[in-house]
């Protein structure tokens, strides 16, 4: 890439993960360098004359002034190609399985293996032939990467303009380093295409154009799908104090969201949470295909005690991988837990650079960096001469200090994301999970996505609106109860409170660890709403005729609403018709009782 002769710099100063070097005149911003006698990897983050500041991706203990800095001529990049799925990498894409083999269960410094397996052969099936004209993004052929991703596309590099395939290999088994096609780009410029490519992590991969986000990312989480849905290609933030359920929600989304590929970034959080995913995902089955979920998953683990500069890089590493699968035409969902730890890494490095601190010590460019990151999400028409669409949905956890959402990371994030799932400490303490506050959360996709839902579930928008209204009314009624006690309420108001309680406890609450309840498909979700709404609207008539709410509540079929969430998805339709009939019967018996 960079042609000039590589010349070594000299370390002047070491402060934690930041190294200052001189004699670096030909260096480029974001260039990868090798630092010190151990040649540990770093990245240039500031240039001033001959001096460069480098953030180092491993512990700098033992590095001293006077040691060399070796430029590499390359920007910090990730490897893209078959073999990404099913793997776990650190923040700079080092495969952790390989590190384990090399250095045991403690991560030692200075080991830089290839990200993708070199010996493995992939069965390549060409879909183009010699003489075909191609442009960047065109698909040359496929390999089967995993049981859940049958068609991993091998694409013409994005920057290619007018290419002519001069050679393409025949169907067969090849390693990623073999040349599978040659593309004549004119002017004697022959591009050799391999299954592996590289892309700098801080540079978004190009697309043709953005398109509208009108399809829901179905998550199987009732409160999300019904009240605060996220679109495919959408952006969402989950802020919440510790223990409010950010990670569990991220895991739930990684498990159940109807995306083709999941990129899960454990950014500065717990090692055990990654171990948990590694243990559970090979066993958990995708609800649609029945195949183990790990087959569509890529894990990036740069946990809290791993080097912070690599933590800073981890979200870009994950995002670049996500873009690569989007470019094939897939729906990718990316989870980052937690973006606050990424922001803190940024703050720590900025502090070492003695930059002018902004709010709470964060650098002034915090919000623009956050915006740039979420900007890489979206649904779009991807490069290539055929018409393909792909999407990246991004869900970022935010960990506000003291659960106070007015802090800079939460606020900067809310300015750019379209869905806000506000986690509430008091709900979490009552063990109401997911602890998404229904009064403060919102989704700006709701109206557009209702157009999709209504096609399959005619009453969906009305039901969700009714639920939101009742929850709002409950809040007002509780205020009255707090002032004057429950006696002051009319029976109609008592019924509203009862309805709201049922919505909260029997519908919104969803247990992540209950086999029958963890994933709720749209049909079950809809039928649950229908049943609750039926209960309310019929009861309202009864109450109007003088029936007491407590009487209605003690009906066996009404009590059964309290346990309906534990009916499995596949049995729910039958259950729905059965319970609906019994509700009808029980409620009408009360109505008769009034008349006689």
């Amino acid at each position, binding site marked *: 890439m960079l042609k000039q002769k590589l010349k070594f710099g000299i370390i002047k*100063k*070491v*402060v*934690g993960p930041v190294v*200052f070097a001189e004699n670096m005149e030909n260096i480029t911003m974001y260039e990868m360098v090798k630092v010190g006698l151990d040649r540990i990897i770093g990245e240039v983050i500031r240039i001033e004359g001959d001096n460069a500041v480098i953030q180092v991706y491993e*512990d*700098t*203990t*033992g*590095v*001293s*002034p006077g*040691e060399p800095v070796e430029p590499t001529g390359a920007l910090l990049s990730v490897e893209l190609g078959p073999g990404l799925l099913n793997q*776990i990498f650190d923040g700079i894409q080092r495969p*952790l399985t390989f*590190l*384990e083999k090399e250095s045991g*269960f*403690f*991560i030692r410094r200075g080991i830089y293996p290839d990200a993708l397996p070199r010996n493995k052969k992939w069965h390549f099936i060409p879909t183009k032939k010699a003489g075909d004209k191609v442009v960047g993004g065109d698909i040359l052929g496929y390999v089967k990467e995993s049981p859940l991703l049958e068609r991993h596309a091998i694409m013409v590099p994005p920057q290619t303009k007018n290419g002519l395939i001069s050679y393409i290999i025949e169907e067969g088994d090849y390693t990623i380093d073999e040349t599978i096609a040659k593309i004549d780009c004119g002017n004697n410029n022959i591009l050799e295409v391999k299954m592996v490519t590289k892309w700098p992590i801080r540079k978004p991969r190009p697309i043709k154009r953005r398109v509208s986000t009108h399809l829901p990312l179905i998550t199987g989480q009732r409160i999300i799908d019904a009240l605060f849905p996220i679109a495919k290609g959408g952006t969402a933030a989950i802020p919440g*104090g*510790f*223990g409010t359920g950010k990670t569990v929600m991220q895991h739930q989304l990684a498990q159940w969201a109807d995306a083709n590929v999941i990129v899960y970034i454990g950014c*500065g959080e*717990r*090692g*055990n949470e*990654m*171990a*948990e995913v*590694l243990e559970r995902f090979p066993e958990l089955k995708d609800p649609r295909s029945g195949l183990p979920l790990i087959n569509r998953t890529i894990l990036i683990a740069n*946990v*809290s*005690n791993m080097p*912070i500069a690599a933590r800073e890089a981890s979200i870009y590493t994950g995002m670049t991988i996500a873009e690569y699968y989007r470019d094939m035409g897939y729906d990718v969902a990316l989870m980052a837990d937690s973006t606050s*730890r990424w922001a*803190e890494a940024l*703050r*720590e490095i900025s*502090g070492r650079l003695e930059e002018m601190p902004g709010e*709470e*010590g964060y650098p002034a460019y915090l919000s623009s960096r956050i915006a740039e990151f979420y900007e890489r999400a979206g649904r779009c028409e991807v490069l290539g001469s055929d018409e393909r669409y792909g999407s990246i949905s991004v869900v970022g956890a935010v*960990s506000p*200090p*003291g*659960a106070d959402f007015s802090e800079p990371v939460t606020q900067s994030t809310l300015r750019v994301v379209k869905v806000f799932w506000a986690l509430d400490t008091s709900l979490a*303490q*009552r*063990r109401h999970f997911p602890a998404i506050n229904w009064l403060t959360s919102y989704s700006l996709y709701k109206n557009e996505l209702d157009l999709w839902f209504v096609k399959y579930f005619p009453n969906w928008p009305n039901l969700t609106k009714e639920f939101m209204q009742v929850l709002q009314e409950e809040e007002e009624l509780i205020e009255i*109860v*707090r*002032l004057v*006690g*429950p*006696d002051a309420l009319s029976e109609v108001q008592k019924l509203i409170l009862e309805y709201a309680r049922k919505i909260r406890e029997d519908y919104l609450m969803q*247990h992540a*660890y209950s086999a029958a309840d963890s994933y709720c498909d749209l049909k079950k979700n809809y039928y649950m709403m229908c049943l609750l709404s039926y209960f309310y609207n019929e009861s309202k008539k009864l109450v109007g005729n003088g029936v007491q709410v407590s009487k209605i509540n003690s009906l066996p079929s009404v*009590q059964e609403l309290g*346990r309906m969430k*534990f009916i499995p998805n596949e049995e729910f339709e039958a259950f729905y018709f059965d319970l609906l009939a019994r509700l009808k019967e029980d409620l009408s018996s009360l109505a008769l009782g009034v008349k006689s």
Partner: protein
Amino acid sequence: MTTKSIITREFKTVSGISGPLLFVQETRNVAYGEYVEIVAQDGSVRHGQVLETSFEMAVVQVFEGSGGLSREHTVVRFTGEPLRFAVSTDVIGRMFNGSGKVIDNGPPIIPKEKLDVNGSPINPKSRAYPTDFIQTGISAIDGMNTLSRGQKLPLFSGNGLPHNEIAAQIARQAKVRKTEEKFLLIFAALGITVDEARFFINSFEESGALSRSVLFINLAQDPAIERILTPRLALTTAEYLAFEEDYHVLVIITDMTNYCEALREISAAREEVPGRRGYPGYMYTDLASIYERTGRVLGKLGSITQMPILTMPNDDITHPIPDLTGYITEGQIIIDRALHRRGIYPPIDVLPSLSRLMKEAIGQNKTRDDHRELSDQLYYMYAEGRSLRELVAVVGEEALTERDHLYLRAADRFEKEFVSQGRYEERSIEQTLDIGWNILSSFPESELKRISLNTIQKYHPSKRSRVS
């Protein structure tokens, strides 16, 4: 560290002293993180570590503090090595000061290995998820916030609350049932009083744990900056004993608040931009470098369970020390002043308490198959009861419904019968769960929505008594 040849270099060029920091001029090739010996005028040796190094200068933090050091007469010796601690099974049953010197008049330790006290991160790929239930004999923990082997579960307390008694009771009673494995206790005291330290040591002695323990003692009158080092020595020892010698190690560290104060002191001396309430912006990462040194790894028999204790300034859980801790640890046990005032021991408030690893540590073959549903229901009941109590305070009891009264009474019983227990009372998990069932049996079944009908059939006292 590196394979570079180790050279010791001496300098007498201290140009400045600020708080616990020494600024040494013209050092050139001093390495970052290097271990340093500082020789005072009287010949006494202190130790320190390089925090920053450049051609012109090295900044050294002195664990014993800089009191009594002068610019002219101080010799700074850079060792070319990271700070190491000598370990072997000899350390078992021994007592060290906060910087790792033997203080029990026993023989010197014959080392098997000298380990870098900063350790290395455990590869997340190599971790084994904790699943073994540790029975502490305390219902509020076992029943509601179960501890498991390899977990980091802190006690969040306040000044004057009985966190020491609770920690000592846990140390005394903790066991993994149906196993006969090698168990060890590592205790690190950071800036606690002589009385507190004596309380712990007596308690360990009484229960026979002392001979199976390793103690690191930094008292209130000991150097504050040493507290940066003490937990690292304890955890280096723990890693060695767990992963090389197959012990199951329980590490108790008290009081992490004093650790954070030391961290703040260094940060202030370096004139860094402070984060929230004056604590350094990197405190999360620094605390993680302690708390994450916990767990189990695949293919190793031993484990490290960590129970740090911290006192929340002003009982404020949003203070950076408990806040950042809660963001790193796998839950927290909250010791509550209101419960304590009402004479409840242990005054554990289960609502804000949490064990994130509970789900894998309970259930059939671990505790009992009804455990999860029962604790969910107890949580629901207690939370309802507690919010009704607040309502009663405003509108009076008369205004409440029959249902409300059930919840109020049950919440009271929960505190008196379930949470409350003796300091020497060790309850089996079955006893704990049965107390829970007794309290819930005052409700009609339709209120027990968190519990499946099958489980009710199997464990509800009314069903069980009918059988017998």
